[in-house]
């Protein structure tokens, strides 16, 4: 069967499931006792296993299977959650992610996973990863902590009904935990004998592991049998203990109410997996509204972004025709036609909003991988770090989202590595040992801001200056007049790295200048502020969308151009006599500043169609700290436009950053102010 058509879906869904795994694992680390979380992870892992096996990615399926076994152990309380175990599971998830990415890049998804598989198998068998863990693990495996009333296993609906009914008829139900001696040779025989004893005493309704597994000796030393009987717990225990080579037996009453509150804690019987899966889904549905909602529950479909683009193109055509229709209806002045056209205009306006919004994605899609990354880095660095994420629901255009991942990773690593100090240093400074990194996203105007704030060491002005001079980035003379903020922003200069020691986390030479370039290429900006000893804030400003921008439409002779509003300071109209000559350059005195004029008509070689009047219309634009006045003939007004590329054939057009289609169907060019200011 040709699987290629499913590949895309497979990759997307795998990524989603792995994301769920990482998120829930982080949760689990905080609440190691919460078995509902383990179930959540188990479900994702199980789906992933099934999908990858179907698609023929064996390594992926194999590793997922091993991970699933460990999770199974955890939820059956055979394995106790510890940081070491979670580390291995995290490592497994990382490997899985690497494999999925390899597949999505056209690779075969193969990877050397033997190390992590071995570790998982050790955990699964309850064997310690390290000597230090040995005792703890052994005790966990041999004598799981038992609290009165907590169930060891859970039951499906049929079993629950049986338990319920038998209780109504005056029977008691017990979970009998039987432990066989370690040196026992014929475990299956002992199991058989235990079952015989129990079946005389009452009715066995369930065993964990399942009867088949027990017969095949597929269990360690311990198994649990659920029994309905009229005899007392003590008697049963004594009877079971009479079977030779049984080391320990314990009876605990089954309390049904308790069970119903934990429906997710379900059977771990591997042969019953399919059945169990069905039950899980059912149970999940019942549980979802009240307790823990699974994921966000939004219904979505995946659409190729190219389709959205062509939808957008077609819609623009519709808008243009709408304009024509409006004009015609005004001319014809027919009541019914007017009403219909008006209605159509309103509807297409709504449609426009929806289409534009479809391209917006919450920044969470980028942020969600950070908690795991920060956890791992913090462990590698032996630092104590708490990452706080604020405003993950803030929306950004898909094209921007795709690009900001790497710069953010870089900045976060930077904050963790260079920003936050070692716990001992922090204690010495009187700060709490746990460093705090805040990742914050919010909307403001036509921009989205993302801030990365740490409460670490902050930056040292002298150190940066020394380094900058050393690297020849600036002269000693220039350094004296710089403000603190200017100094801090020097770290974005290429070839700058302030870490005293080069670590493999950050400071590999390719530094923050790459971050700045990426962000600036998106039409954004990045800046830094810092207070020595208190911490630093990296602030990234990003345009809401790359495809729609606000512009000022202007006219030069008979040609229309658009100037991005983001680079305009203000507009002005001056008399020709106010223009001064400085050398060969025409300048004006604008609010006490000498501002050079750029005559767009000459720069853009616009053909002369009519004479100009005695006034100049100026659009004051800026690039960084520099300003210029663009001389135009007429302001048309402000407008939201859809940005279009000029196409690869005309890529190198001078001072033009793109084009847009105006309401009348004509193309207007967008002026690149950065190219006009030297």
């Amino acid at each position: 069967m040709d699987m290629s058509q499913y590949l895309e879906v497979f990759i997307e869904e795998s990524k989603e499931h792995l994301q769920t795994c990482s998120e829930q694992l982080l949760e689990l680390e905080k609440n190691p006792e919460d078995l509902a979380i383990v179930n959540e992870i188990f479900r994702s892992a199980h789906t992933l296993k099934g999908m990858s096996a179907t698609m023929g990615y064996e390594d992926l399926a194999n590793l997922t299977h091993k991970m699933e076994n460990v999770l199974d152990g955890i939820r059956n309380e055979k394995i106790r959650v510890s940081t070491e175990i979670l580390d291995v599971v995290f490592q497994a998830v990382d490997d899985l992610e690497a494999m999925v990415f390899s597949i999505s890049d056209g690779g075969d998804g193969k990877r050397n996973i033997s190390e992590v598989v071995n570790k998982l198998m050790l955990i699964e068998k309850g064997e310690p990863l390290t000597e230090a863990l040995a005792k703890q693990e052994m005790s966990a495996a041999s004598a799981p902590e038992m609290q009165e009333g907590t169930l060891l296993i859970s039951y499906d609906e049929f079993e629950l009904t049986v338990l319920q009914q038998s209780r109504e008829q005056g029977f008691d139900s017990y979970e009998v935990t039987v432990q066989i001696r370690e040196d026992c040779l014929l475990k299956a025989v002992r199991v058989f004998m235990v079952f015989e004893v129990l079946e005389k005493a009452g009715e066995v309704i369930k065993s964990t592991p399942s009867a088949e597994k027990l017969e095949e000796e597929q269990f360690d030393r311990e198994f649990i049998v659920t029994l309905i009987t009229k005899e007392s717990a003590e008697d049963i225990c004594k009877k079971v203990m009479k079977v030779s080579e049984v080391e320990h037996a314990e009876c605990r009453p089954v309390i049904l109410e308790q069970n119903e509150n934990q429906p997710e804690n379900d059977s771990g019987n591997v042969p019953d997996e399919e059945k169990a899966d069905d039950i899980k889904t059912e149970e999940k549905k019942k549980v979802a509204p009240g307790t823990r909602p699974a994921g966000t529950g939004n219904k979505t479909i995946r659409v190729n972004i190219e389709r959205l683009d062509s939808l957008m193109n077609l819609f623009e055509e519709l808008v243009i025709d709408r304009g024509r229709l409006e004009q015609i209806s005004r001319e014809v002045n027919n009541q019914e036609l007017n009403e219909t056209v008006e209605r159509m205009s309103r509807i297409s306006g709504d449609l426009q909003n929806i289409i534009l919004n479809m391209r917006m994605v919450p920044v969470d899609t980028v942020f969600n991988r950070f908690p795991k990354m920060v956890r791992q880095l913090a462990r590698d660095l032996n630092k104590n770090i708490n990452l706080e994420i604020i405003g993950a629901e803030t929306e950004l255009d898909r094209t921007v989202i795709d690009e900001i991942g790497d710069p953010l990773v870089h900045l976060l690593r930077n904050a963790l590595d260079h920003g936050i100090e070692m716990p001992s240093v922090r204690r010495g400074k009187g700060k709490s040992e746990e460093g705090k990194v805040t990742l914050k996203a919010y909307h403001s105007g036509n921009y989205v801001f993302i801030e990365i704030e740490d409460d670490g060491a902050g930056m040292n002005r002298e150190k940066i200056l020394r380094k900058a001079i050393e690297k020849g980035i600036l002269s000693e003379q220039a350094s004296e007049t710089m403000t603190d903020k200017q100094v801090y922003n020097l770290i974005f200069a290429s070839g700058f790295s302030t870490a005293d020691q080069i670590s493999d986390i950050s400071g590999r030479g390719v530094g923050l200048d790459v971050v700045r370039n990426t962000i600036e290429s998106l039409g954004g900006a990045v800046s830094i502020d810092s207070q020595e000893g208190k911490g630093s804030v990296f602030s990234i400003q990003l345009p809401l969308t790359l495809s729609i921008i606000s512009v000022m439409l202007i006219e030069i002779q008979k040609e229309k151009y658009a100037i991005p509003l983001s680079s305009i300071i203000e507009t002005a109209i001056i008399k020709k006599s106010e223009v001064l000559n400085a050398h060969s350059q025409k300048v004006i005195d604008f609010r006490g500043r000498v501002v050079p004029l750029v005559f767009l008509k000459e720069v853009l070689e616009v053909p002369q169609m009519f004479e100009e009047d005695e006034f100049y219309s100026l659009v004051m634009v800026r690039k960084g700290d520099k300003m210029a006045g663009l001389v135009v003939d007429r302001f048309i007004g402000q407008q939201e436009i859809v940005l279009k590329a000029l196409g690869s054939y005309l890529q190198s057009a001078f001072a033009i950053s793109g084009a847009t289609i105006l309401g009348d169907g004509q193309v207007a060019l967008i002026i690149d102010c950065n190219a006009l200011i030297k």
Partner: protein
Amino acid sequence: MAESAALSTASELKVIIFQLVDKEYALPVSQVRSIEKLQHITRVPKTPHFVKGVLNLRGVVTPIIDLRLRFGLEQEPYSDSTRIIIAAAQESEVGLIVDAANDVLDIQAESIEPQPEVAGTIDEEYIEGIVKIDKRLFILLNLDKVLNPEELNNTSGKEG
């Protein structure tokens, strides 16, 4: 190149015939997206003189080349018969302004001859071959050469 492949394998080639001054040219239909009437073209500053600008082709900004100027022929005002042939080149679409586009023909691959040695009005590198049917002579264009981007960048920006 798709074109040469088409020439060597298919015995028949469907071409669009268009006119420039007094000569007839041919482009394989596989390279032609559509034929449009003349509409408003927005001039793009500082581009080679044969680039007339861009137009809005159903929501896509498409660059337009005047083939007369591209081939160094004298310019004439556009008329009612002037057409824009939207051709697919590499990944993008480019419009070619021609005097008229009036025919679709099937030509035999064997009837394509290499260009005669005599130097014509057009630089020979744009020409894939010559086709003679009855008494008509068609010049088969090599679109990739016509749209050679290197030349686009080398030609100094002069706009009339």
